[in-house]
C-alpha cells in the first residue's frame, strides 16, 4: 500500500476510460521540484468530458466513485477517497489555467521503492503549480510560492508568462508585497 499502488489504480482508471488525461497537482506535485512538506492527500487534476456532465450542466464524479467502489475503494478521508493508503482528491479542470497545466504536464517514470518497480505518471510543471497556488491564494499556497522562488525551482520567465496570460498580475503583485520581495517579473523585463 502506498503511492505506487495509488497511481497504478489511477492509471487503470485512465486506461479503462473512466477518467481522461490526469496529472498530479498540489503539494505532491511540488515534491518533484522542492523540499517536501507533509500532506495527507494527493490532488489529481483530471480532464472532464461530456460524459461526466449532468443535464443541468453540473459536473458529476459519480462514474469515478462508482468505478472505485466496485474495486473496493469507498472510504472517504476528509474530502478525498482513500486509495491504497492515500486520500485522493479528483479535481476536474475548471479554468483555462488548469487546462493548460494539464496539457503541459510532465511525463515521469516514478520509482518510489526500488523493489516495487516504477510507475508512469504526469506531474504539473513548476510555473503552473505556482500560478495555481497564486490563484488559490491561501497562506499555505503563498508559502509554497516562496519555496519555489527561494529554491529557484521555477523558471521565472515561464512563470511571468503564465501570470501575464492568465490575468494573475494583481494577485502576483499582492503576493510580492506581502512576501517583501521585489517583483521578479519586473526585474526580468528591465534586463
Amino acid at each position: 500500500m502506498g503511492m505506487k499502488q495509488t497511481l497504478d489504480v489511477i492509471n487503470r482508471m485512465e486506461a479503462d476510460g473512466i477518467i481522461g488525461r490526469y496529472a498530479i497537482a498540489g503539494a505532491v506535485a511540488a515534491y518533484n521540484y522542492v523540499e517536501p512538506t507533509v500532506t495527507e492527500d494527493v490532488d489529481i487534476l483530471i480532464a472532464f468530458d461530456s460524459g461526466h456532465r449532468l443535464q443541468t450542466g453540473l459536473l458529476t464524479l459519480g462514474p469515478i466513485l462508482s468505478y472505485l467502489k466496485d474495486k473496493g475503494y469507498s472510504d472517504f478521508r476528509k474530502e478525498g477517497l482513500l486509495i491504497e493508503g492515500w486520500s485522493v482528491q479528483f479535481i476536474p479542470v475548471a479554468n483555462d489555467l488548469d487546462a493548460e497545466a494539464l496539457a503541459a504536464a510532465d511525463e515521469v517514470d516514478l520509482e518510489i521503492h526500488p523493489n516495487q518497480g516504477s510507475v508512469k505518471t504526469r506531474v504539473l510543471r513548476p510555473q503552473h503549480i505556482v500560478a495555481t497556488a497564486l490563484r488559490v491564494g491561501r497562506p499555505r499556497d503563498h508559502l509554497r510560492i516562496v519555496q519555489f522562488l527561494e529554491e529557484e525551482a521555477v523558471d521565472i520567465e515561464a512563470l511571468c508568462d503564465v501570470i501575464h496570460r492568465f490575468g494573475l498580475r494583481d494577485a502576483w503583485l499582492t503576493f510580492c508585497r506581502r512576501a517583501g520581495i521585489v517583483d521578479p517579473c519586473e526585474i526580468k523585463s528591465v534586463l
Partner: protein
Amino acid sequence: MKRPKATYPDISDILQRKAEGRRDIARRTFGEKIAMMEALRERLAPFKQLRERRRAAKSVRRSGP
C-alpha cells in the same frame, strides 16, 4: 539596576547546516521524496491521532449539555 548584557552563542553554523540539509532533501528524486513522506506520515500517525482526539473532545465540550 542595569541588567548585564546577555551573551548568546553564535548558531550560524547550525543554521547553515540546517539550510544545507533542506537543500539536500530538495535535491532528492521525486520518488525518494514520496517514500520519505510516506515514512514520515507513519511516524506522525500517533500525533495525528492525538490531534484528532483533542479536536473531537473540544467539539463535544462546545456542543455541551
